[in-house]
């Protein structure tokens, strides 16, 4: 009899445990461990002039229009720089999510440029954790101004510039990203003996999201001493990213006239302190050239 009572006493426990399971059926499957890629550390693949941690996605073409007005210290006579403008038109294409290539042409010094960017580390959380993203950037530039002195012997190689840059960064939170970019710029021809052909420096850049679609960006290029002429200043730019669907508008202030590595790193002559500041904008418009295969609806 006692045993029977025990049974009756126990049965609610058993039923109870059964019932408790029904409260959350999904927990029966256990927690799935997935790896999540940390994306969108910047709105586009440029901070302002610098390349950002982001790549153009595979199969996507990104048409870039870069524009820099003259400097603010031109005063009212130059309408604070608006009378002058320098432009760069560019096309970036994502061969894959990891590899982006690009071509561009700047009106400043009539320069053509090309780059390859390989993102070899992607920040991720979850099962496979990776604290940082990292990319290798290789660029080259061909300056096509007429020779200043056609009588001397001029070499085509004197027009060439190369940049090697490592970009390492982390999206610390939804709104804050920081990256550093150790850089080497090689110039085949320099103006004086005092200038080095190889120039080393490190860039630092960050972005702070002000809202879902607006971000504040800043970038600064530090050069090791005694490599470039005395009148060369470090490049400093501050601006906003404004994203509207397929476009990203970047509005900024910068002391660099050039929009490509060899230019803003080794040829920035204006200083913020003297009002040598350009107002400028970049417009990025993306086109999906190769659509990702839609998943089979019968899966």
């Amino acid at each position, binding site marked *: *009899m006692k*045993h*029977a009572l025990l*049974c009756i006493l126990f*049965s609610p426990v*058993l039923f109870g445990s*059964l019932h408790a399971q*029904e409260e*959350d*059926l*999904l927990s*029966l*499957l256990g927690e*799935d461990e*997935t790896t*999540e890629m940390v*994306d*969108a550390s910047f709105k586009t693949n440029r901070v302002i002039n610098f390349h950002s941690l982001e790549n153009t*996605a*595979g*199969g*996507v073409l990104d048409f870039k229009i870069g524009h820099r007005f003259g400097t603010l210290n031109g005063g009212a006579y130059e309408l604070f720089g608006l009378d002058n403008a320098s432009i760069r038109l560019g096309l970036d294409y994502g061969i894959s*999510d990891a590899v982006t290539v690009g071509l561009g042409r700047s009106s400043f010094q009539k320069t053509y440029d090309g780059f390859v960017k390989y993102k070899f580390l992607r920040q991720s959380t979850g099962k496979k954790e990776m604290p940082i993203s990292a990319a290798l950037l290789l660029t080259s530039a061909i300056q096509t101004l007429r020779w200043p002195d056609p009588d001397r012997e001029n070499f085509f190689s004197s027009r060439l510039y190369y940049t090697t840059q490592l970009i390492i960064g982390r999206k610390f939170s*939804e709104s804050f990203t920081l990256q550093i970019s150790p850089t080497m710029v090689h110039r085949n021809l320099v103006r004086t003996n005092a200038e080095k052909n190889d120039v080393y420096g490190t860039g630092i850049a960050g972005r702070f999201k002000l809202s*879902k*679609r607006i971000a504040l960006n800043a970038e600064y290029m530090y050069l090791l001493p005694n490599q470039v002429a005395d009148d060369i200043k470090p490049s400093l730019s501050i601006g906003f990213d404004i994203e*509207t*669907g*397929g476009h990203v508008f970047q509005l900024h202030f910068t002391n660099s006239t050039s929009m490509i590595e060899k230019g803003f790193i080794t040829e920035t002559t204006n200083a913020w302190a003297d009002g040598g500041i350009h107002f400028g904008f970049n417009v990025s418009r*993306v086109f*999906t050239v190769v*659509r*990702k295969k*839609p*998943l089979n*609806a*019968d*899966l």
Partner: protein
Amino acid sequence: MKNGIILTVLFLLVFNGKGSAQKYFTKSAHVAFYSDTPIEKIEAHNTTSNCVFDLATGRIEFSTLIKGFQFEKALMQEHFNENYMESNAFPKATFKGQIENYRKIDPTKNGKHVVLVSGDMNMHGVSKKVSAQAVIEVKDGTIQSSSTFQIAVADYKVAIPSLVKDQIAKSIKVTVDAVLKPLSK
């Protein structure tokens, strides 16, 4: 008396055992949605959704990772996660509900049943009561369920800026397809 105890214990064991076997699950349910406007057609697919169905009680639950939705365009996917669904803050969408006329589903007999499912849909931090018709098909020991329903973007506090309001439908068509296998535990 002893026989009685043994019977009771046996009954409990059998009942318990039957209770687990009556649960069905999948980790690869296909959830898709379609936004259709004259300007733009958008669709996204997720084939890694979890679903558990308890045949004994008629309860059914789904869980879908927002980041698992794949779009044709990379930028859409980025905006979907970053601007609209805010998947870092709200990583999952869940549905926990009840199949109303579940008793007519016999897992031992192949056949199709039209049922009504209703329950709570939770996504983007908002929980809403929803109900939809679904087709449950028993086929060789598996339970295949599929359903199509509409959800209103505004119900889940997903803000659409006026600039793109003509590109994104106010009502989104959602389809769910799941092939559930017995959960052995």
